[in-house]
Protein backbone atom coordinates (compact mmCIF):
# COMPACT_ATOMS: atom_id res chain seq x y z
CA UNK A 1 0.00 0.00 0.00
CA UNK A 2 2.80 2.42 0.95
CA UNK A 3 4.63 1.64 -2.24
CA UNK A 4 1.55 2.44 -4.28
CA UNK A 5 1.15 5.78 -2.56
CA UNK A 6 4.65 6.80 -3.59
CA UNK A 7 4.21 5.81 -7.22
CA UNK A 8 2.52 8.11 -9.72
CA UNK A 9 -1.30 8.24 -9.79
CA UNK A 10 -1.49 6.60 -13.21
CA UNK A 11 0.67 3.64 -12.17
CA UNK A 12 -1.41 3.25 -9.09
CA UNK A 13 -4.64 3.07 -11.07
CA UNK A 14 -3.25 0.43 -13.40
CA UNK A 15 -1.88 -1.57 -10.55
CA UNK A 16 -5.14 -1.39 -8.64
CA UNK A 17 -7.12 -2.34 -11.69
CA UNK A 18 -4.89 -5.33 -12.29
CA UNK A 19 -5.14 -6.35 -8.66
CA UNK A 20 -8.90 -5.99 -8.81
CA UNK A 21 -9.16 -8.13 -11.90
CA UNK A 22 -7.09 -10.79 -10.14
CA UNK A 23 -9.21 -10.53 -7.05
CA UNK A 24 -12.41 -10.88 -9.04
CA UNK A 25 -11.11 -13.82 -10.98
CA UNK A 26 -9.48 -15.72 -8.13
CA UNK A 27 -12.67 -16.89 -6.38
CA UNK A 28 -14.08 -18.16 -9.64
CA UNK A 29 -10.88 -20.07 -10.33
CA UNK A 30 -11.19 -21.71 -6.94
CA UNK A 31 -14.79 -22.72 -7.37
CA UNK A 32 -14.41 -23.59 -11.06
CA UNK A 33 -14.19 -27.36 -10.44
CA UNK A 34 -17.65 -27.29 -8.95
CA UNK A 35 -19.04 -24.95 -11.62
CA UNK A 36 -17.76 -27.23 -14.39
CA UNK A 37 -18.99 -30.30 -12.54
CA UNK A 38 -22.36 -28.65 -12.03
CA UNK A 39 -22.65 -27.89 -15.75
CA UNK A 40 -21.49 -31.30 -16.99
CA UNK A 41 -22.65 -33.70 -14.31
CA UNK A 42 -25.75 -31.98 -12.93
CA UNK A 43 -27.35 -29.18 -14.95
CA UNK A 44 -26.50 -30.73 -18.33
CA UNK A 45 -27.83 -34.17 -17.38
CA UNK A 46 -30.95 -32.60 -15.84
CA UNK A 47 -31.78 -30.66 -19.03
CA UNK A 48 -30.92 -33.70 -21.11
CA UNK A 49 -33.13 -35.94 -19.04
CA UNK A 50 -36.03 -33.48 -19.11
CA UNK A 51 -35.73 -33.32 -22.90
CA UNK A 52 -35.56 -37.09 -23.14
CA UNK A 53 -38.75 -37.40 -21.13
CA UNK A 54 -40.66 -35.77 -24.02
CA UNK A 55 -39.25 -38.23 -26.55
CA UNK A 56 -39.52 -41.84 -27.45
CA UNK A 57 -35.79 -42.31 -26.96
CA UNK A 58 -34.21 -45.75 -27.40
CA UNK A 59 -30.46 -46.09 -26.71
CA UNK A 60 -29.86 -46.81 -30.38
CA UNK A 61 -32.20 -45.95 -33.22
CA UNK A 62 -34.78 -43.35 -34.15
CA UNK A 63 -35.98 -40.92 -31.49
CA UNK A 64 -39.33 -39.22 -31.92
CA UNK A 65 -40.90 -36.31 -30.12
CA UNK A 66 -44.00 -37.46 -28.27
CA UNK A 67 -44.81 -34.45 -26.09
CA UNK A 68 -46.35 -35.42 -22.79
CA UNK A 69 -47.17 -38.91 -23.99
CA UNK A 70 -44.66 -40.63 -21.70
CA UNK A 71 -46.21 -38.98 -18.67
CA UNK A 72 -49.74 -39.56 -19.89
CA UNK A 73 -49.34 -43.28 -20.52
CA UNK A 74 -47.45 -43.66 -17.26
CA UNK A 75 -50.29 -42.19 -15.23
CA UNK A 76 -53.15 -43.58 -17.29
CA UNK A 77 -52.07 -46.90 -18.75
CA UNK A 78 -49.18 -48.36 -16.78
CA UNK A 79 -50.30 -50.42 -13.76
CA UNK A 80 -46.64 -51.07 -12.83
CA UNK A 81 -46.12 -47.35 -12.34
CA UNK A 82 -48.93 -47.12 -9.81
CA UNK A 83 -47.99 -50.35 -8.07
CA UNK A 84 -44.31 -49.53 -7.72
CA UNK A 85 -45.09 -46.02 -6.54
CA UNK A 86 -47.53 -47.40 -3.97
CA UNK A 87 -44.92 -49.88 -2.68
CA UNK A 88 -42.39 -47.09 -2.38
CA UNK A 89 -44.86 -44.88 -0.51
CA UNK A 90 -45.63 -47.76 1.86
CA UNK A 91 -41.91 -48.33 2.40
CA UNK A 92 -41.27 -44.63 3.05
CA UNK A 93 -44.28 -44.31 5.35
CA UNK A 94 -42.90 -47.03 7.61
CA UNK A 95 -39.16 -46.62 7.15
CA UNK A 96 -38.90 -42.85 7.64
CA UNK A 97 -40.68 -42.59 11.03
CA UNK A 98 -38.98 -45.71 12.36
CA UNK A 99 -35.59 -44.51 11.19
CA UNK A 100 -35.99 -41.20 12.97
CA UNK A 101 -37.69 -42.42 16.15
CA UNK A 102 -35.25 -45.31 16.64
CA UNK A 103 -32.25 -43.11 15.87
CA UNK A 104 -33.57 -40.56 18.32
CA UNK A 105 -34.10 -43.14 21.08
CA UNK A 106 -30.64 -44.62 20.52
CA UNK A 107 -29.10 -41.14 20.56
CA UNK A 108 -30.97 -40.41 23.78
CA UNK A 109 -29.67 -43.61 25.39
CA UNK A 110 -26.12 -42.79 24.32
CA UNK A 111 -26.47 -39.21 25.50
CA UNK A 112 -27.35 -40.39 29.00
CA UNK A 113 -24.74 -43.13 29.12
CA UNK A 114 -21.74 -41.98 31.10
CA UNK A 115 -19.62 -45.10 30.79
CA UNK A 116 -18.43 -46.66 27.50
CA UNK A 117 -20.76 -44.49 25.42
CA UNK A 118 -18.06 -44.30 22.75
CA UNK A 119 -18.03 -48.07 22.45
CA UNK A 120 -21.80 -48.34 22.03
CA UNK A 121 -21.85 -45.44 19.60
CA UNK A 122 -19.31 -47.26 17.44
CA UNK A 123 -21.30 -50.49 17.56
CA UNK A 124 -24.48 -48.77 16.39
CA UNK A 125 -22.62 -47.00 13.60
CA UNK A 126 -20.78 -50.07 12.26
CA UNK A 127 -23.49 -51.32 9.84
CA UNK A 128 -23.47 -47.90 8.11
CA UNK A 129 -19.85 -48.43 7.19
CA UNK A 130 -20.27 -51.51 5.01
CA UNK A 131 -21.42 -51.90 1.43
CA UNK A 132 -25.02 -52.39 0.42
CA UNK A 133 -23.99 -55.63 -1.30
CA UNK A 134 -22.42 -56.95 1.90
CA UNK A 135 -25.45 -55.84 3.88
CA UNK A 136 -27.70 -57.74 1.53
CA UNK A 137 -25.69 -60.96 1.68
CA UNK A 138 -25.64 -60.78 5.45
CA UNK A 139 -29.39 -60.29 5.69
CA UNK A 140 -30.20 -62.95 3.13
CA UNK A 141 -28.87 -65.53 5.63
CA UNK A 142 -30.57 -64.00 8.58
CA UNK A 143 -33.85 -64.35 6.71
CA UNK A 144 -33.13 -67.78 5.22
CA UNK A 145 -36.09 -70.10 5.73
CA UNK A 146 -34.27 -73.15 7.04
CA UNK A 147 -30.82 -72.06 8.17
CA UNK A 148 -31.44 -68.44 9.03
CA UNK A 149 -30.47 -66.85 12.29
CA UNK A 150 -33.87 -65.24 12.70
CA UNK A 151 -35.88 -68.42 12.38
CA UNK A 152 -33.44 -70.20 14.68
CA UNK A 153 -34.09 -67.57 17.36
CA UNK A 154 -37.82 -67.88 16.81
CA UNK A 155 -37.56 -71.66 17.12
CA UNK A 156 -36.01 -71.20 20.56
CA UNK A 157 -39.27 -69.71 21.74
CA UNK A 158 -41.27 -72.31 19.91
CA UNK A 159 -42.29 -70.36 16.82
CA UNK A 160 -42.02 -71.92 13.39
CA UNK A 161 -40.52 -69.02 11.43
CA UNK A 162 -42.00 -68.04 8.08
CA UNK A 163 -40.24 -67.71 4.75
CA UNK A 164 -39.41 -64.04 5.21
CA UNK A 165 -38.23 -63.22 1.70
CA UNK A 166 -40.61 -65.60 -0.07
CA UNK A 167 -43.84 -64.34 1.40
CA UNK A 168 -45.36 -61.34 -0.40
CA UNK A 169 -46.81 -59.98 2.82
CA UNK A 170 -43.49 -60.17 4.70
CA UNK A 171 -40.79 -59.30 2.16
CA UNK A 172 -41.34 -55.54 2.40
CA UNK A 173 -41.10 -55.68 6.20
CA UNK A 174 -37.89 -57.70 5.86
CA UNK A 175 -36.40 -55.01 3.62
CA UNK A 176 -37.45 -52.27 6.02
CA UNK A 177 -35.75 -54.02 8.93
CA UNK A 178 -32.56 -54.58 6.92
CA UNK A 179 -32.57 -50.89 5.94
CA UNK A 180 -33.06 -49.82 9.55
CA UNK A 181 -29.91 -51.69 10.48
CA UNK A 182 -28.05 -48.83 8.82
CA UNK A 183 -29.54 -46.04 10.92
CA UNK A 184 -26.15 -45.16 12.43
CA UNK A 185 -25.67 -42.03 10.36
CA UNK A 186 -28.99 -40.53 11.43
CA UNK A 187 -28.31 -41.48 15.02
CA UNK A 188 -24.94 -39.74 14.94
CA UNK A 189 -26.43 -36.51 13.64
CA UNK A 190 -29.12 -36.49 16.33
CA UNK A 191 -26.57 -37.33 19.04
CA UNK A 192 -24.47 -34.34 17.99
CA UNK A 193 -27.63 -32.24 18.16
CA UNK A 194 -28.45 -33.44 21.67
CA UNK A 195 -24.95 -32.61 22.85
CA UNK A 196 -25.29 -29.08 21.50
CA UNK A 197 -28.33 -28.23 23.66
CA UNK A 198 -27.19 -26.00 26.56
CA UNK A 199 -27.35 -27.82 29.90
CA UNK A 200 -28.54 -24.62 31.63
CA UNK A 201 -31.93 -24.99 29.99
CA UNK A 202 -32.52 -28.31 31.73
CA UNK A 203 -31.09 -27.06 35.00
CA UNK A 204 -33.38 -24.04 35.01
CA UNK A 205 -36.35 -26.23 34.12
CA UNK A 206 -35.56 -28.73 36.88
CA UNK A 207 -35.23 -25.94 39.44
CA UNK A 208 -38.62 -24.60 38.40
CA UNK A 209 -40.11 -28.04 38.87
CA UNK A 210 -40.78 -28.84 35.20
CA UNK A 211 -41.28 -32.62 34.90
CA UNK A 212 -39.04 -34.68 32.63
CA UNK A 213 -41.69 -35.32 29.99
CA UNK A 214 -42.34 -31.58 29.66
CA UNK A 215 -38.62 -30.89 29.36
CA UNK A 216 -38.52 -33.39 26.52
CA UNK A 217 -41.51 -31.77 24.84
CA UNK A 218 -40.60 -28.11 25.33
CA UNK A 219 -36.80 -28.11 25.36
CA UNK A 220 -35.31 -31.18 23.68
CA UNK A 221 -37.63 -31.52 20.70
CA UNK A 222 -37.74 -27.84 19.66
CA UNK A 223 -33.98 -27.43 20.17
CA UNK A 224 -33.31 -30.56 18.16
CA UNK A 225 -35.78 -29.38 15.53
CA UNK A 226 -33.39 -28.32 12.78
CA UNK A 227 -31.57 -31.65 12.94
CA UNK A 228 -34.79 -33.66 13.09
CA UNK A 229 -35.98 -31.87 9.98
CA UNK A 230 -32.64 -32.40 8.27
CA UNK A 231 -32.75 -36.14 8.97
CA UNK A 232 -36.43 -36.27 8.08
CA UNK A 233 -35.78 -34.85 4.62
CA UNK A 234 -32.68 -36.94 3.94
CA UNK A 235 -34.59 -40.06 5.06
CA UNK A 236 -37.42 -39.28 2.65
CA UNK A 237 -34.97 -38.81 -0.21
CA UNK A 238 -33.15 -42.05 0.53
CA UNK A 239 -36.42 -43.95 1.02
CA UNK A 240 -37.61 -42.98 -2.44
CA UNK A 241 -34.27 -43.92 -3.97
CA UNK A 242 -34.28 -47.36 -2.35
CA UNK A 243 -32.85 -49.70 -4.97
CA UNK A 244 -29.72 -51.66 -4.02
CA UNK A 245 -31.25 -53.71 -1.22
CA UNK A 246 -34.40 -54.65 -3.09
CA UNK A 247 -32.49 -55.31 -6.31
CA UNK A 248 -30.21 -57.83 -4.60
CA UNK A 249 -32.28 -59.22 -1.75
CA UNK A 250 -35.62 -59.89 -3.43
CA UNK A 251 -35.19 -58.74 -7.04
CA UNK A 252 -38.53 -57.01 -6.66
CA UNK A 253 -40.37 -60.17 -5.69
CA UNK A 254 -42.07 -62.22 -4.52
CA UNK A 255 -44.98 -61.41 -6.83
CA UNK A 256 -43.74 -57.85 -7.26
CA UNK A 257 -44.31 -57.10 -3.58
CA UNK A 258 -40.96 -55.28 -3.29
CA UNK A 259 -40.87 -53.80 -6.77
CA UNK A 260 -39.84 -50.27 -5.81
CA UNK A 261 -40.32 -47.17 -7.92
CA UNK A 262 -36.55 -46.79 -8.37
CA UNK A 263 -36.44 -50.34 -9.71
CA UNK A 264 -39.24 -49.53 -12.13
CA UNK A 265 -37.18 -46.62 -13.47
CA UNK A 266 -34.05 -48.76 -13.56
CA UNK A 267 -35.79 -51.55 -15.49
CA UNK A 268 -37.27 -49.17 -18.04
CA UNK A 269 -33.85 -47.67 -18.67
CA UNK A 270 -31.46 -50.59 -18.53
CA UNK A 271 -33.65 -53.60 -19.20
CA UNK A 272 -36.09 -52.25 -21.80
CA UNK A 273 -33.77 -49.41 -22.94
CA UNK A 274 -36.72 -47.02 -23.09
CA UNK A 275 -34.69 -44.02 -21.96
CA UNK A 276 -37.36 -41.38 -22.54
CA UNK A 277 -39.96 -43.26 -20.54
CA UNK A 278 -37.49 -43.94 -17.73
CA UNK A 279 -36.44 -40.28 -17.69
CA UNK A 280 -40.09 -39.27 -17.33
CA UNK A 281 -40.37 -41.65 -14.37
CA UNK A 282 -37.31 -40.14 -12.72
CA UNK A 283 -38.85 -36.66 -13.03
CA UNK A 284 -42.00 -37.89 -11.34
CA UNK A 285 -39.80 -39.11 -8.50
CA UNK A 286 -37.96 -35.78 -8.37
CA UNK A 287 -41.24 -33.88 -8.22
CA UNK A 288 -42.54 -36.06 -5.38
CA UNK A 289 -39.34 -35.80 -3.33
CA UNK A 290 -39.15 -32.05 -3.85
CA UNK A 291 -42.79 -31.51 -2.91
CA UNK A 292 -42.47 -33.62 0.23
CA UNK A 293 -39.30 -31.79 1.28
CA UNK A 294 -40.93 -28.40 0.80
CA UNK A 295 -44.00 -29.49 2.74
CA UNK A 296 -41.83 -30.71 5.60
CA UNK A 297 -39.88 -27.44 5.66
CA UNK A 298 -43.05 -25.34 5.62
CA UNK A 299 -44.67 -27.39 8.32
CA UNK A 300 -41.54 -27.35 10.48
CA UNK A 301 -41.13 -23.57 10.29
CA UNK A 302 -44.03 -23.33 12.74
CA UNK A 303 -42.45 -25.27 15.57
CA UNK A 304 -38.72 -25.59 14.97
CA UNK A 305 -36.49 -23.29 16.96
CA UNK A 306 -33.60 -21.80 15.01
CA UNK A 307 -31.13 -20.19 17.31
CA UNK A 308 -30.59 -16.50 16.47
CA UNK A 309 -29.84 -16.10 12.80
CA UNK A 310 -28.37 -19.55 12.43
CA UNK A 311 -30.46 -21.13 9.73
CA UNK A 312 -29.38 -24.15 7.71
CA UNK A 313 -28.07 -21.84 5.02
CA UNK A 314 -26.41 -18.65 6.17
CA UNK A 315 -24.13 -17.16 3.64
CA UNK A 316 -23.06 -14.05 5.48
CA UNK A 317 -21.57 -15.36 8.66
CA UNK A 318 -18.08 -14.58 7.39
CA UNK A 319 -18.99 -11.00 6.49
Amino acid at each position, binding site marked *: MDMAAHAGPKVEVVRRRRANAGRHLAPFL*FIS*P*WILGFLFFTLGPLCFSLTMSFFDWPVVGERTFVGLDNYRSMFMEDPQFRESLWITVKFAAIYVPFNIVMSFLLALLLHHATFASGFFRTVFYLPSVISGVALV*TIWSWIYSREYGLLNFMLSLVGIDGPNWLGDPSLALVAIIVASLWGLGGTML*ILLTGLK*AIPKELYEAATVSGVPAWAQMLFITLPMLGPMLIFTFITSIISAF*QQLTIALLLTKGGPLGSTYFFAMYIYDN*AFKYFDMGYAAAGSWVMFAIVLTLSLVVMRWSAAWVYYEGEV*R*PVDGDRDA
Partner: protein
Amino acid sequence: MRKTVLYAALILLSALFIAPFYWTFMTAVKSTAELYQFPPVLWPAEWHWENFAAAWNKQPFGTYLSNSLIVVVLSTVGQLLSSSLVAFGFARFRFPGRDALFVLLLATMMIPWDVKMIPLYMEFNMLGWINTLKPLIVPAYFADAFFVFLLRQYIMTIPMEIDEAARMDGANSFDIYWRIHLPLMLPALVLVGTFHFMNAWNDYLGPLIFLNDQSKYTLTLGLSMFKGLHEIDVTSIAAITVILCLPPLALFFLAQRYIMDGAVGSSVKG
Protein backbone atom coordinates in the same frame (compact mmCIF):
# COMPACT_ATOMS: atom_id res chain seq x y z
CA MET B 1 -31.52 -48.38 39.01
CA ARG B 2 -32.13 -46.14 36.01
CA LYS B 3 -28.54 -46.65 34.93
CA THR B 4 -28.95 -50.42 35.13
CA VAL B 5 -31.96 -50.32 32.83
CA LEU B 6 -30.08 -47.97 30.50
CA TYR B 7 -27.09 -50.26 30.23
CA ALA B 8 -29.21 -53.39 29.91
CA ALA B 9 -30.93 -51.74 26.95
CA LEU B 10 -27.63 -50.64 25.40
CA ILE B 11 -26.08 -54.10 25.72
CA LEU B 12 -29.12 -55.83 24.30
CA LEU B 13 -29.32 -53.43 21.38
CA SER B 14 -25.64 -53.66 20.56
CA ALA B 15 -25.96 -57.44 20.52
CA LEU B 16 -28.65 -56.97 17.86
CA PHE B 17 -26.35 -54.72 15.83
CA ILE B 18 -23.32 -57.00 16.17
CA ALA B 19 -25.03 -60.37 15.64
CA PRO B 20 -25.23 -60.15 11.83
CA PHE B 21 -21.50 -59.44 11.62
CA TYR B 22 -20.72 -62.28 13.97
CA TRP B 23 -22.94 -64.67 12.03
CA THR B 24 -21.33 -63.75 8.71
CA PHE B 25 -17.82 -64.19 10.03
CA MET B 26 -18.64 -67.56 11.58
CA THR B 27 -20.30 -68.69 8.37
CA ALA B 28 -17.08 -67.89 6.51
CA VAL B 29 -14.88 -70.05 8.74
CA LYS B 30 -17.23 -72.99 9.33
CA SER B 31 -16.86 -76.35 7.68
CA THR B 32 -19.46 -77.30 5.10
CA ALA B 33 -20.90 -79.91 7.46
CA GLU B 34 -21.47 -77.37 10.19
CA LEU B 35 -23.12 -74.99 7.77
CA TYR B 36 -26.34 -76.93 7.56
CA GLN B 37 -26.58 -78.24 11.07
CA PHE B 38 -29.61 -77.56 13.14
CA PRO B 39 -29.55 -75.94 15.64
CA PRO B 40 -26.98 -73.68 13.97
CA VAL B 41 -23.39 -73.87 15.07
CA LEU B 42 -22.57 -70.65 16.89
CA TRP B 43 -18.93 -71.48 17.56
CA PRO B 44 -17.23 -73.74 14.98
CA ALA B 45 -15.24 -76.71 16.25
CA GLU B 46 -12.47 -75.99 13.74
CA TRP B 47 -11.60 -72.72 12.07
CA HIS B 48 -11.25 -73.13 8.32
CA TRP B 49 -9.15 -70.13 7.35
CA GLU B 50 -8.48 -71.73 3.96
CA ASN B 51 -12.08 -70.86 3.04
CA PHE B 52 -10.92 -67.32 2.31
CA ALA B 53 -8.28 -68.37 -0.20
CA ALA B 54 -10.67 -70.84 -1.80
CA ALA B 55 -13.33 -68.19 -2.25
CA TRP B 56 -10.82 -65.68 -3.60
CA ASN B 57 -9.79 -68.11 -6.34
CA LYS B 58 -13.30 -68.89 -7.55
CA GLN B 59 -13.50 -65.65 -9.50
CA PRO B 60 -10.82 -63.22 -10.72
CA PHE B 61 -11.00 -61.34 -7.45
CA GLY B 62 -7.42 -60.10 -7.90
CA THR B 63 -8.58 -58.18 -10.98
CA TYR B 64 -11.67 -56.90 -9.16
CA LEU B 65 -9.54 -55.75 -6.26
CA SER B 66 -7.14 -53.84 -8.49
CA ASN B 67 -10.09 -52.20 -10.29
CA SER B 68 -11.62 -51.21 -6.97
CA LEU B 69 -8.30 -49.81 -5.77
CA ILE B 70 -7.76 -47.80 -8.96
CA VAL B 71 -11.22 -46.27 -8.64
CA VAL B 72 -10.98 -45.61 -4.93
CA VAL B 73 -7.47 -44.14 -4.89
CA LEU B 74 -7.78 -41.94 -7.97
CA SER B 75 -11.22 -40.65 -7.09
CA THR B 76 -10.28 -39.93 -3.48
CA VAL B 77 -7.32 -37.81 -4.60
CA GLY B 78 -9.62 -35.91 -6.96
CA GLN B 79 -12.29 -35.43 -4.34
CA LEU B 80 -9.87 -34.08 -1.75
CA LEU B 81 -8.28 -31.60 -4.16
CA SER B 82 -11.41 -30.35 -5.90
CA SER B 83 -13.67 -30.11 -2.86
CA SER B 84 -11.07 -28.29 -0.77
CA LEU B 85 -10.38 -25.81 -3.60
CA VAL B 86 -14.07 -25.04 -4.00
CA ALA B 87 -14.64 -24.85 -0.25
CA PHE B 88 -11.76 -22.38 0.05
CA GLY B 89 -13.29 -20.28 -2.73
CA PHE B 90 -16.64 -20.12 -0.98
CA ALA B 91 -15.23 -19.55 2.50
CA ARG B 92 -12.56 -16.93 1.85
CA PHE B 93 -13.81 -14.66 -0.93
CA ARG B 94 -16.68 -12.26 -1.33
CA PHE B 95 -17.85 -12.10 -4.92
CA PRO B 96 -21.05 -11.28 -6.74
CA GLY B 97 -23.45 -14.18 -6.72
CA ARG B 98 -21.54 -16.15 -4.11
CA ASP B 99 -24.45 -16.76 -1.78
CA ALA B 100 -26.79 -17.68 -4.61
CA LEU B 101 -24.22 -20.14 -5.96
CA PHE B 102 -23.77 -21.64 -2.53
CA VAL B 103 -27.49 -22.17 -2.12
CA LEU B 104 -27.48 -23.76 -5.57
CA LEU B 105 -24.67 -26.06 -4.47
CA LEU B 106 -26.66 -27.12 -1.41
CA ALA B 107 -29.77 -27.62 -3.52
CA THR B 108 -27.95 -30.10 -5.76
CA MET B 109 -27.79 -32.46 -2.79
CA MET B 110 -31.56 -32.89 -3.06
CA ILE B 111 -31.52 -34.27 -6.60
CA PRO B 112 -32.20 -38.01 -6.57
CA TRP B 113 -29.50 -40.02 -8.27
CA ASP B 114 -32.13 -41.71 -10.42
CA VAL B 115 -32.73 -38.46 -12.28
CA LYS B 116 -29.06 -38.13 -13.19
CA MET B 117 -28.27 -41.79 -13.78
CA ILE B 118 -30.01 -42.07 -17.15
CA PRO B 119 -28.61 -38.91 -18.81
CA LEU B 120 -25.19 -39.61 -17.31
CA TYR B 121 -25.26 -43.06 -18.85
CA MET B 122 -26.07 -41.48 -22.24
CA GLU B 123 -23.41 -38.81 -21.74
CA PHE B 124 -20.71 -41.33 -20.87
CA ASN B 125 -21.91 -43.51 -23.71
CA MET B 126 -21.34 -40.66 -26.17
CA LEU B 127 -17.88 -40.05 -24.70
CA GLY B 128 -17.09 -43.74 -25.12
CA TRP B 129 -16.57 -44.14 -21.39
CA ILE B 130 -18.98 -47.02 -20.85
CA ASN B 131 -17.16 -50.14 -19.75
CA THR B 132 -14.20 -48.10 -18.53
CA LEU B 133 -13.46 -46.97 -14.98
CA LYS B 134 -13.63 -43.29 -15.99
CA PRO B 135 -17.30 -42.65 -15.03
CA LEU B 136 -16.41 -43.81 -11.52
CA ILE B 137 -13.30 -41.61 -11.27
CA VAL B 138 -13.60 -38.41 -13.29
CA PRO B 139 -16.69 -36.86 -11.61
CA ALA B 140 -14.80 -36.92 -8.30
CA TYR B 141 -12.44 -34.28 -9.72
CA PHE B 142 -15.33 -31.81 -9.92
CA ALA B 143 -16.15 -31.52 -6.21
CA ASP B 144 -19.06 -32.95 -4.27
CA ALA B 145 -21.62 -30.61 -2.71
CA PHE B 146 -21.72 -32.30 0.67
CA PHE B 147 -17.94 -32.36 1.03
CA VAL B 148 -17.65 -28.72 -0.09
CA PHE B 149 -20.20 -27.77 2.55
CA LEU B 150 -18.34 -29.72 5.21
CA LEU B 151 -14.93 -28.25 4.35
CA ARG B 152 -16.29 -24.72 4.03
CA GLN B 153 -17.74 -24.93 7.53
CA TYR B 154 -14.34 -26.04 8.75
CA ILE B 155 -12.40 -23.29 6.98
CA MET B 156 -14.74 -20.69 8.44
CA THR B 157 -13.59 -21.61 11.95
CA ILE B 158 -10.01 -20.64 11.01
CA PRO B 159 -9.26 -16.98 11.88
CA MET B 160 -9.01 -14.63 8.93
CA GLU B 161 -5.92 -13.02 10.50
CA ILE B 162 -3.84 -15.99 9.41
CA ASP B 163 -4.70 -15.30 5.77
CA GLU B 164 -4.04 -11.60 6.16
CA ALA B 165 -0.65 -12.17 7.75
CA ALA B 166 0.34 -14.47 4.90
CA ARG B 167 -0.87 -11.96 2.33
CA MET B 168 1.27 -9.27 3.97
CA ASP B 169 4.23 -11.57 3.46
CA GLY B 170 3.47 -11.66 -0.24
CA ALA B 171 1.59 -14.96 -0.49
CA ASN B 172 -1.06 -15.14 -3.21
CA SER B 173 -4.43 -16.84 -2.77
CA PHE B 174 -3.22 -20.16 -4.06
CA ASP B 175 -0.25 -20.15 -1.66
CA ILE B 176 -2.62 -19.44 1.19
CA TYR B 177 -4.81 -22.35 0.15
CA TRP B 178 -1.99 -24.77 -0.54
CA ARG B 179 0.51 -23.96 2.19
CA ILE B 180 -1.72 -22.77 5.02
CA HIS B 181 -5.27 -24.04 4.72
CA LEU B 182 -4.64 -27.49 3.33
CA PRO B 183 -2.46 -28.48 6.32
CA LEU B 184 -4.85 -26.81 8.75
CA MET B 185 -7.79 -28.64 7.19
CA LEU B 186 -6.21 -32.02 7.78
CA PRO B 187 -8.81 -33.34 10.25
CA ALA B 188 -11.63 -32.37 7.91
CA LEU B 189 -9.77 -33.83 4.95
CA VAL B 190 -9.36 -37.11 6.79
CA LEU B 191 -13.11 -37.14 7.29
CA VAL B 192 -13.88 -36.33 3.66
CA GLY B 193 -11.33 -38.88 2.47
CA THR B 194 -12.82 -41.56 4.71
CA PHE B 195 -16.39 -40.87 3.65
CA HIS B 196 -15.44 -40.77 -0.01
CA PHE B 197 -13.35 -43.92 0.26
CA MET B 198 -16.30 -45.74 1.81
CA ASN B 199 -18.74 -44.47 -0.81
CA ALA B 200 -16.45 -45.43 -3.67
CA TRP B 201 -15.47 -48.79 -2.21
CA ASN B 202 -19.07 -49.70 -1.38
CA ASP B 203 -20.62 -48.34 -4.57
CA TYR B 204 -22.72 -50.91 -6.38
CA LEU B 205 -25.10 -49.05 -8.71
CA GLY B 206 -22.36 -47.04 -10.44
CA PRO B 207 -20.29 -50.08 -11.46
CA LEU B 208 -23.49 -52.01 -12.25
CA ILE B 209 -24.61 -49.42 -14.79
CA PHE B 210 -21.30 -48.27 -16.25
CA LEU B 211 -19.34 -51.54 -16.48
CA ASN B 212 -20.10 -54.59 -18.63
CA ASP B 213 -16.94 -56.66 -18.85
CA GLN B 214 -15.96 -58.95 -16.06
CA SER B 215 -12.37 -57.74 -16.45
CA LYS B 216 -13.58 -54.25 -15.43
CA TYR B 217 -15.63 -55.34 -12.43
CA THR B 218 -15.10 -53.97 -8.96
CA LEU B 219 -15.29 -56.08 -5.81
CA THR B 220 -18.92 -55.24 -5.01
CA LEU B 221 -19.95 -56.30 -8.49
CA GLY B 222 -17.91 -59.49 -8.16
CA LEU B 223 -19.63 -60.36 -4.91
CA SER B 224 -23.07 -59.77 -6.40
CA MET B 225 -22.09 -61.99 -9.36
CA PHE B 226 -21.30 -64.72 -6.88
CA LYS B 227 -24.88 -64.76 -5.80
CA GLY B 228 -25.99 -65.47 -9.34
CA LEU B 229 -23.35 -68.06 -10.14
CA HIS B 230 -23.19 -70.13 -7.00
CA GLU B 231 -26.33 -69.53 -5.02
CA ILE B 232 -25.46 -72.48 -2.80
CA ASP B 233 -21.85 -71.56 -2.15
CA VAL B 234 -22.62 -69.87 1.15
CA THR B 235 -19.12 -70.18 2.57
CA SER B 236 -17.48 -68.36 -0.33
CA ILE B 237 -20.05 -65.58 -0.31
CA ALA B 238 -19.53 -65.11 3.41
CA ALA B 239 -15.75 -65.11 3.02
CA ILE B 240 -15.82 -62.46 0.27
CA THR B 241 -18.35 -60.43 2.28
CA VAL B 242 -15.94 -60.44 5.22
CA ILE B 243 -13.07 -59.36 2.95
CA LEU B 244 -15.20 -56.63 1.40
CA CYS B 245 -16.14 -55.27 4.83
CA LEU B 246 -12.61 -55.19 6.20
CA PRO B 247 -11.14 -52.06 4.51
CA PRO B 248 -14.04 -49.73 5.38
CA LEU B 249 -14.16 -51.09 8.93
CA ALA B 250 -10.38 -50.66 9.35
CA LEU B 251 -10.51 -47.16 7.93
CA PHE B 252 -13.45 -46.33 10.14
CA PHE B 253 -11.56 -47.33 13.26
CA LEU B 254 -8.51 -45.33 12.19
CA ALA B 255 -10.53 -42.22 11.40
CA GLN B 256 -13.11 -42.68 14.13
CA ARG B 257 -11.89 -39.75 16.19
CA TYR B 258 -12.53 -37.39 13.29
CA ILE B 259 -15.84 -38.93 12.31
CA MET B 260 -17.39 -38.97 15.74
CA ASP B 261 -16.30 -35.68 17.22
CA GLY B 262 -15.10 -33.45 14.46
CA ALA B 263 -17.04 -32.60 11.45
CA VAL B 264 -20.33 -34.39 11.94
CA GLY B 265 -21.28 -31.53 14.19
CA SER B 266 -20.06 -28.77 11.96
CA SER B 267 -21.51 -30.41 8.90
CA VAL B 268 -25.09 -30.25 10.05
CA LYS B 269 -25.06 -27.36 12.42
CA GLY B 270 -24.94 -24.89 9.55
